[in-house]
């Protein structure tokens, strides 16, 4: 069954870029795909085991969708299709090659964000695609999560997590280190683990192998 081939391709893709689908709402586009309800249910379940959460289904007949399946969506914004050259060579005309994944990710062009207000206690700033620059402080009890690096022109009193999409080269910079927790690519340090002499200093934080390094910057 072509869908199985497509799943193999998907696994290959996922193996190459860890966290590609992590925390992303995925829309399944079924246009041009001839699939029955049971097969669809099976596909959604198989995707779920791969941690791909289907939030909506596009291009499906109304009769195909049941209450236990994700709801129908229309007018999703197409991004670049997942490239699956191998399947394109297969002979079936309406194959899984047409099963495009719409990822709600903005293009690379606007992959960094600048926030010109302080991040307040209780607020959570997520930016999975790229760098985050904050002109202001990050308060105790708040968090900043970025796929790329985090730059804070102020005090870091809350949590900062950089490189969350598997980017081990991401760094955290801040003018004043008073963090509750810092993390890069899943490796973390809590406030107690931080060198006391670096508290209150302007620092940069990066990953060397599996060790988080913190050093003062002038």
């Amino acid at each position, binding site marked *: 069954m072509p869908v199985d081939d497509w799943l193999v391709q998907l696994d290959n893709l996922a193996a190459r870029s860890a966290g590609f689908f992590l925390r992303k709402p995925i829309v399944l586009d079924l246009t041009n795909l001839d699939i029955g309800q049971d097969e669809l249910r099976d596909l959604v379940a198989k995707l779920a085991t791969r941690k791909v959460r289907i939030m909506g289904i596009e291009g499906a007949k109304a009769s195909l969708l049941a209450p236990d399946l994700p709801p129908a969506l229309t007018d999703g914004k197409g991004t670049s299709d997942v490239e699956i050259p191998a399947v394109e060579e297969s002979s079936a005309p309406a194959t899984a090659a047409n099963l495009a994944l719409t990822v709600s990710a903005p293009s690379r062009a606007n992959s960094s964000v600048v926030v010109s*207000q302080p991040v*307040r*206690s209780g607020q959570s700033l997520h930016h999975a695609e790229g760098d985050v620059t904050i002109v202001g402080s990050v*308060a105790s*009890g708040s968090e900043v999560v970025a796929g790329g690096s985090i730059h804070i022109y102020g*005090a870091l*009193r809350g949590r900062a997590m950089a490189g969350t999409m598997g980017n081990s080269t991401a760094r955290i910079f801040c003018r004043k280190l008073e963090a509750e927790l810092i993390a890069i690519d899943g490796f973390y340090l809590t406030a107690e683990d931080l060198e006391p002499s670096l508290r209150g200093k302007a620092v940069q934080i990066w990953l060397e192998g599996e060790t988080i390094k913190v050093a003062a910057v002038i």
Partner: protein
Amino acid sequence: MGKVIVVTSGKGGVGKTTSTAALGAALAQNGAKVVVVDFDVGLRNLDLVMGAERRVVYDLVNVIQGEAKLTQALIRDKRVETLFLLPASQTRDKDNLTPEGVEKVITALKNAFDWVICDSPAGIERGATLAMRHADVAIVVTNPEVSSVRDSDRIIGLLDSKTLKAENGETMEKHLLLTRYDSARAERGDMLKVDDVLEILSIPLLGIIPESMDVLRASNVGSPVTLADGRSAPAIAYFEAARRLNGEALPVVIPGDKRGLFGKIFGRRAA
């Protein structure tokens, strides 16, 4: 069209009600028409501090539910003619506050008064969010200690996201009122310094109210501190804060800093 102010803090017991009453009385003494509105349904206190607890007939919930007219619920202060109180209900549940009802009352008050000062309940639940929803200006009351400062930080975040102004893409004007400031304890390092609080919260300072027995004494006799003794230190600080609210550029003096040589020699021993 009057200005709507919300007096809020997140944390309880920092002086929201005291500040609402004191600022309301200070503004009204200059001739402005002022109404102070108690949003703390179920735990009302503003009527006590205003000395009107025995004059409450109808309240905010009655007005919202259409059981009384706004003019019936408003209580005119006996000392200052232009000062009014809209009390909260003590017996009703706070779920009786509806967004539509609150909007109607605030709009009506805005048309009749120069200042509408809403005393928010503590917390970040329904009562607090409804009190801040229609505000033009927010006064964030904070004590110089870490838990109060963090709660204030949280409230500022909500002011910037959950209010009508924020939803319309405007920015809410926010002022910090630092209350219960004890210069002796600040000097010893038992309290956060003014600069530290300002650095964390990064909003403009409206005033610093010194810790004083005068505040408690005034509350106990049912009088805003600005009416009870206009020359006491906290009253002067509230009067100055009210002038800054009116747009005057008045420098803030940190209590303790203005002490002369005498104070410097003898003040420390008293602490």
